[in-house]
Each structure stands twice: as C-alpha cells, then as structure tokens.
C-alpha cells in the first residue's frame, strides 16, 4: 500500500494524534498549541490537508488516523532501503549493525524479533 507522504512538521502532529486518538478536534487544537506552538487556523489547515491525503479522517469533529505509526515507519524504511541500499535488506542490516556496535546479546535479541 502506498503510504501518503508526510512532512516532518506534519509527522510531529501525527505523533500527538496517535497518542491521543480518537480526539475531539478542539482538544487537538489545544494540544497542538501547547506542544507545537500552532495557531487554531494552522491546526485546522493541517487536519484538512492530511485528511485530503488520506492520512486521517475528521468525522463529527472527531479526528482519528487512517495510517498507523508503524505503517509510516515501515514506509520510510522501505524508501530508505530502496534509495540507498538498492532494495536489499541484507545490505541495510549489515550497514545498520556495523554502525551500531551491537553486543552479541543485543544481536540475538534482534534476530529473534525478525524471526517473529
């Protein structure tokens, strides 16, 4: 599934949404003002934009997401892999583990997760 593009600032907004959904839009506006420093107009504009893009839906003044956090994360990883590692998961993992200086235990843990 093609995940819609989300800009960085919109992503931060989504973080708030994921943590508090489903949420009344007025509440959401208050939260955004507090955490992001956004005005009411800005928040509503972003809500509209993201709903047009299919990232969230706004029904009866209640906002809930259509795309989950995990989905977004996966989409971005896919993009990264495609762009920088020619779509090769092994290449990516190799680079990743090298970078991270993992201990053997940690490595084993990861292998287990992947297996799942």
């Amino acid at each position: 599934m093609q995940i819609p593009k989300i800009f960085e600032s919109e992503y931060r907004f989504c973080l708030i949404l994921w943590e508090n959904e489903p949420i009344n839009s007025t509440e959401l506006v208050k939260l955004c003002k507090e955490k992001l420093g956004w005005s009411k107009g800005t928040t509503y504009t972003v809500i509209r934009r993201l709903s047009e893009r299919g990232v969230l839906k706004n029904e009866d003044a209640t906002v809930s997401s259509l795309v989950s956090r995990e989905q977004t994360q996966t989409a971005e990883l896919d993009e990264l892999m495609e762009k920088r590692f020619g779509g090769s998961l092994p290449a990516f993992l190799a680079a990743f583990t090298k970078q991270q200086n993992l201990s053997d235990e940690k490595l084993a843990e990861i292998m287990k997760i992947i297996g799942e």
Partner: protein
Amino acid sequence: MQFLNMSITAGWIVLALLLLRPLVKKLPKWVGCTLWALVGIRLVLPFSFESMLSLIPSVETIPPDIAMQRNPQVHTGIEMLNHAVNPVITQSFAPKADTLTSINPLQIVEFIMARLWILGMVAMLLYALFSFVSLKTKLRTATKLEKGIFESEFVESPFILSNNVYLPYNMTAEEREYCLLHERAHLKRGDHLIKPLAFVLLSVYWFNPLVWVAFVLLCRDIELACDEKVIKQLGDTERKEYSLTLVKNSISRKRIAACPLAFGEVGVKERVKKVMNYKKPAFWVLVVAIALSVVLTVCLLTNPVGMKITYIEDHRKILDDVYSVNIIVDNETDSRFGTNAEEVVKALKTLRVEKYPVSQSRSEDRDNANRLVLRYGGGSNPIMLCFNADCSEVWVDDGVKPSYSYKVKNPDKIEGFFKINYVDGVLRVLSSNSDVEGISISIKGYSFGDRPYLEIEWKNDTDKEFVMGEYFGLLYSNGMGNSFSCAKGEIVFHDIAYIIPAHDSTVMTYGLSRFDVSKSGYYTFKANYGGNLWIDFILDYGEFYQDDIIELKSMTDEQRSRLYFDGNAISPISSIRFEPIFRLDTKKDFEDFAKKYDFITFKNGGDLQTIIDNMAENIFDDYSLLLAVVPNSTKVTVGEFYVGDEGMRLHLHAKNEYGDERSNWLVITSVQKRELNNAELTATLWGELVKDRTYSYYFSPDLFPPSLVLREDGTGSFSYSVLSSTANFGYYKNNGETIVLTTEDKRYYFTFIIDGDKLIFDAKNSSEIPKYRYSENGVPITPVPDGAVFE
C-alpha cells in the same frame, strides 16, 4: 530631485568607505557597521551641519532647476569632473535653438526618470512584501521547540523572522547551541531591525549602484560583527566547532533575502577565516577605532562650509587694505560709497562662498552689470569684485584675467547695497482673460524692484497637453485708452517649447529687465499661444518720488515752528535757513500732516484726497517720508541728503527767481526705514519745480472742454476737441497783451488776448480750427469760436 542629490552625496561616502576598507581590516567589525550608518543618515536626512573638515565635494550636484536652464550643467564640486562631464551634458541636453519649436529635452528626461524611479521603488517593496508573506505562510506549521525557537522542514539554514528563531529539523544539540548563540547575538544587536530599514532605503535609492554595494557590504559586516560577538565568549575548541557549523549551514543562495537574517548565507569562507583568527583586540585598537569613527562622521556627515572671500584666488590681504568702494548697478556707477569703504568691506568679510568654484566656463554667462569695485593699497588698478544679478555668484576680476565664479552662501549680506533707494512697486490684478479654451493664467508672484519679474501660473484644464514658450508682451496704458509696448528696444525670444501636461499647471518666470516698468499705471501682460491670454493689472509705486514737491498754502511762522524732527522740537538741522525736517512713519502720520498743513497740489497732478486714497497701504512698511520746508522759493534744488548717526542733513539749493510770496515748497523724499537706523549713506537728489497753468473753455459744444496749457518753461499745448487726433504742442510767447502759441512744426499758431487772468481766443489771428458735427442733423461748427473765454 533632492533624492538624486542626496544619493550622490551618500555615494561619495560609500566611495570613501570602500577605499578605507582594506585599511581597517584589523578593526572590530562593529566599527564597520557604524560607518555604514553614516551612509544611512545621509540618505535619510536632507540637511546637515556645515564644518570646515567636510570632505564632501558638493551637496547640490544637480541644480534643482536644471530642466529650465539653457546650458544645463552639474556642479559636482570637483573641477576636473565638472570639466569632463558638463560639456557632454550641455551638448546632449541643451534645448536646441535652431529648430522652430524644440522641446526642452531635460523636461522629458526628468518626467520619465521620475516615473521609472517610483516604479522601481514600488517593485522592490512589493517583492519584499511578497517574500515576507509567503515565508510566513510556509512557516505556519513550524513546530515549537522552546519559547521563541521553532523548527520547520522549510528552513534550510537558520534565520530570524519577527523575533523568532527558525531552525531546520535534525540539528545536533551542539549545532543548535551555536546557531542560537549567533541568532541571539543578532537580536541583541538589533540587526533584525537594521536590515529591513536598510532595505527600505535601498528601494528608495535603487537607481544608485553605490547604494546596492553599500547594502551588500552592510549585510556582510553585520554577519561578521555578529560572529565576533559570539566568538568573544567561546574558547578555542568551541570556535572550531562554531566554524564547522558555519560551513554545514552554508547555502549557495545568491538571492538577497531582505527579511530573514540567515545564519550562513554570507561569505562563509571569510567568516570562517575570521572566526579562526579572532583575537581580542588590544586597547589601542579600540581607541583608534573610536577616533576614526568620530573623524569620519565629521568629515562625511557634515556639509562643506562656505569659504570666506579673502581666500579666493590669493587676494588675501586685499580686504584689509581697501580705501574706496564703488558700486555699479545696472552698469551705472553709484558712487555713494565713494569713500565709505569700511561699511562695504565689513559686509564683504562676512560673506561666505562655496569652497569649489562653480565652473570655469561660465564667463560668457556672467552679468557684468553689477559690480563692486574696490581700490586698495598701492596702485590705481581697481580689483573688481563682481556679482551676478541676484548676488548668488561672485568672481574677482583684476582687469587681466577673471577668476572662476564661486557660489555665494549668504547673498543677503551684499544684496542690500545693490538695493538702496529702489522703490518696489505694488501690483494689483484687475482681470485675467483667455481666448484659449481650457487654458488660464494668473499672477503667482512678482517683484517690481530693481530686478523686476512676473511669475505667471499657466493652468491647463484640457485633456490634451499644451505647448507654449517664452513669448510674451507687456503693455502700458495711460488710462486714456491708449496702450504702448513697454519694451526697451528689441526683445529676442528663444524658441524653446514648454509642455504643460493635461490637467496640470506650471509656473513660468518672466524677467522684465528689457521692459520699462518704472511708471505707476495700468499694465497688461499678454501672450499668444493658439489664442490670446492676458492679465490686466495696476502697478503702483506709491505717490512719492525723490523729486516730488508739494506746494503748501502759506505757512505761518507758528505753523512752521510746529514742524519738528521725529517728534522732538530739536534744533533745526537743514542747512538752508535751518528749516527743520519732519518725519512721517505711517500713512496716518501723512494724513494728519497733510490735513494740518493744507496741501494744495502735487507736481504730478491730483488732489490730496486722491493721493491719500491711492497711496499704497504698505508703502510705509519699508519707507518713511522726510519732509523739509523751503519757504519762499519757487525753484528748489536739493543738493545733498545725508542720513547719519548725528541725524539727517538736507542740503537745499533754493532760488527765488520769481519772487512769488505764495510759495512754500515742501521737499519730500522717501527713505528706507532700515537705513534710518543704521548705515551711513549719501544720496543725491534733485527736484525741480515747474509751474504750469491750464485754461479751459467750458462753454464749448465739444464733449471735452478745449484747453490751453502753458508751462513755465515756455512750452504749451492747445487741444480743441476730443475728436481731433492732434494736440497742438509747441511754444508760446507772452508779449503782455496777447499770448501766441505756435506749434512745434511752425505750421499752426493760436492767439489769445489777455484779459486779467482769463484768455480770449482770437480766431482772426489764429489758424483755422476744423469744424465738427455735434448733433444728428446739425451743421458742422467750430468747437472754439472767436471770443471764447478760457479761464
């Protein structure tokens, strides 16, 4: 136009600062910013103080009226530059005189340039507005990091916008630290206000490339100064980190972002170098920096002061050595200052003159009609100090080689000497008329003193532009229906066309030096452009001239003793029989005096009431009247009139040839009030009394009583009918029984028999008088029959 001159002045500063830049590299950068402030101030303030240390060549490079000049020139203040530039300007922009009507090119140029300038300014301000607005919109979704600090994906390198700092996402904490330090330093310095202000100035002066240079360099200096501020607080390693951050955040954007103060947009290489090499400046460096700033401020911010005239062309000692001064006005020598040199020299010493000459090539434009001639020290060769007509320029002529012309800064000091004893006329407009549809003229200003002119406003209410030129005429009317042209000889008009745009107006100044406007009376200003336009007005010089003489009824001794000088019965000071002088300072004074002493007639005709009614209201604003009584004389010549510290002296030479005891003649002269209070001046006056007698025949059938005028000097005239086009003027002889008037061409003669104080016309011994028809069916009859009694 003023903006143009201001930007040129500022341009000089920019050039100076550019030259200085390599020398002051060692100095802290905040000095640099202050120096750019000098440019800013020059661009904003139209005025400034004068100082001897000013390095600015000229504050008024382009004369405001250059579009009206026949030989347009600029005064850059630098001789060589003038010399190089002016011939080209004059060549390309002087209105051509050989074509029938040529448009004054500079008017067109001015018009276009003014429009272009406004366009450019508006364009730049709009651009700034748009970029500001669009940036603000994009940043709406910037997420708050801390109070006053936001992050946004649209930010490529950190900047400040409306007091908030905007950073890109994904900065390391370290980077963020340094950026914030830098931006905070900007805020503390007030750069977020300075840059927009500078941009506004840039949009106003966009046409001057030096201003762009200044702006770019200002931006650079601001960044560098900011870096310095940050660096001061950092240690060596931190500095390295800082410069790395600089590099990381640099972008190759070349656009000049007017609003945001970007972190990395300007000259990264230079900034890194500076950062790495930063050393806290030594104390002496700071001292030098401050001293330099002060010096430069004085030199560049102040206007050039006028030079004293002693230093022109090395004639240093001359003013201390003058023993006589003559003033030549309108080419006539006025030797009243013959020996009173100190007065003039004192004024000359206060004269200030611009440091740099106006132009070398002005000699043919010089007006040699007004000059001061100083004789000094040893030698009979006078040094001539010459002024042009309005005393705005001066040059020195030693008879061999005239100097350059210098612009006079305070012409009012000298103008007074040229203005003595000129009576300024007062103008009253009667009507303004026009044959040309939609075009009207009116008088906006005038002077009828020693350099007369009229300022006429032309108003174009049509939808089309109106073309006119310099052509005009001035007519004088003697009140009896005849108009004469006032031109003194041939007037040459230049074929230059002036355009008045639709629904616009312009004021033209018409010099009247080639016209005789010395008489009070009715005048008409007339022009013809596609039809006639004219203005009728009255010119009133007041009723008193220097040689006016009034006849008084016989004055008793008691009355005469009541005449006193200035309200005090002080001892008489007139040298003729010690008659006192009476002083009138207001119109009421005159009325009172006239009524008290019963004036009879004025030499120039008219009765007292008419004189009072027609007397200009404001003649007593600037003038007082001095009256001296000369009893028992019919011929009075005023020899000398002197006003000085000890009082006034009127030398009268009076002759009593006719033994007419009826006469007590009052000599009136008008004196400028200011001269009564200061200065010494001698004026030569003369007055001559000419009696004449008019005899009229009141029973004539004619519309106008025929009259015979006999003058004391033997001339006379006889006019017998208003229908006749001739007034017989000639000479008369009184042989006791008859008076015979012979016309000048000796073709006609008229005899009158003396009968007491009446004269009786003797037709038999006179030339024939034509007959006229005086009624519908009447027979032609003579207007003066035989035996007509003239009284």
